[in-house]
């Protein structure tokens, strides 16, 4: 196995053209896969030595570039992205967040990818070089571990639009706080106007081969009153719509129940029936 450590993007593109290889930055997933034997690359390309501005806010869009770690994200002013502030500390551990990157999480394309879930919520895009293709993350992910990256391309940047005046909910169900791979995770962005749902986005992790989001189901909620019967009904519909598997973390049936209960819980956490809450 050869390891390449380019210092410039030009050098990176050349290596990618000539040897292709497996790209990595933090290596927190790639090294585990190599060690377990599920990945045996002939060449590894470490992008960490390429110095680009890591994370930038530009014209209402958050740009998360190559080699930006989760720790870099947490030291950036993310007040316009409160749900990211909530999700990132639940990822891995301090050691993992010091090394692992959101871009790597997306390219890993795991249905349990916590950061990936936020990309679906924000309809985030990914920018690929040197082709300058910009595609929706949802389209970039083709299946578990399968991404629409050409052999000569590199993933360079995630683009998150600012979404003002949205309430948010995020919960990850698992067995412990750190190093926790989600049994089920749920993220919601909600815009209310006088008790009417103006917009809602619901993303679920670990319940399907990909992160689950259904604009069809979301459309059914938009325009409804923000009230418990609506959420109870929609919670059941999501529970029916997902296709979880049974694995070492939970059974499929338990995951479906979690989906339903998490969405009902979300209603209360998002401020539903304030007077009832806690009684």
């Amino acid at each position, binding site marked *: *196995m*050869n*390891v390449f*450590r380019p210092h410039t993007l030009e050098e990176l593109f050349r290596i990618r053209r000539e040897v292709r290889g497996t790209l990595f930055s*933090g*290596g*927190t997933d790639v*090294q*585990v896969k190599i*060690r*377990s034997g599920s990945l045996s690359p002939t060449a*590894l390309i*470490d992008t*960490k*030595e390429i110095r680009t501005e890591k994370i930038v806010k530009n014209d209402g869009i958050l740009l998360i570039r190559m080699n930006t770690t989760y*720790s870099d994200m947490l030291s950036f002013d993310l007040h316009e992205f409160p749900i990211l502030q909530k999700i990132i*500390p639940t990822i*891995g*551990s*301090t*050691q*993992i967040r*010091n*090394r692992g990157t959101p871009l790597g999480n997306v390219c890993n394309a795991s249905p349990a990818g916590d950061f990936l879930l936020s990309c679906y919520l924000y309809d985030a895009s990914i920018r690929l070089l040197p082709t300058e293709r910009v595609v929706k993350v949802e389209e970039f992910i083709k299946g578990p571990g399968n991404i629409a990256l050409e052999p000569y391309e590199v993933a360079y940047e995630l683009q998150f639009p600012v979404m003002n005046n949205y309430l948010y909910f995020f919960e990850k169900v698992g067995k412990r*706080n*750190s*190093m926790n791979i989600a049994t089920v995770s749920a993220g919601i962005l909600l815009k209310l106007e006088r008790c009417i749902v103006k917009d809602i986005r619901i993303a679920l992790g670990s319940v399907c081969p990909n992160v689950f989001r259904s604009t069809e189901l979301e459309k059914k909620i938009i325009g409804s009153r923000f009230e418990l019967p609506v959420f109870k009904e929609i919670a059941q519909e999501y529970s029916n719509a997902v296709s979880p598997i049974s694995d070492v973390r939970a059974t499929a049936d338990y995951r479906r129940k979690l989906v339903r209960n998490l969405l009902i819980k979300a209603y209360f956490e998002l401020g539903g029936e304030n007077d009832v809450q806690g009684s």
Partner: protein
Amino acid sequence: MRIAFNLNGKNYHRDVSEEKRLLDFLREDMNMTSVKEGCGEGECGACTVIIDGKAVNSCLILAVEIDGHSVLTLEGLKNDIIQQAFIDSGAIQCGFCTPGMIMSTKALLDSVKNPTEEQIKTALEGNICRCTGYIKIIDAVKEAAKKYRGE
């Protein structure tokens, strides 16, 4: 591959196999045997070292990745404030996790002078101990923080 790096304050040049993990390189080539292998997959933190000021798992890093960077292991700590606090608080039983715990503590105290219990737990969340039950470890970090501040 030939690499140049700083380890515990000294500069080195070494030839290293591109497949070698930093963990193995530190133990076998540099005799830094405080760096322990527990799980080998970034879950347990026994192999924690500090690279450029940040706590990382040396089992998930290739030795070639330290080319041009600074690495600190337990052997490089200039004083024994944290170690002594671990001893005084009874935070050590078998001791296997201790070097990693101390390196995570060091990274925390270098950036936060007066950490809350929550910050301590976050800093140590990637370090597993199977003996002590963590309470004494957290006490030790609080103790070390006081000494670090010169109290």
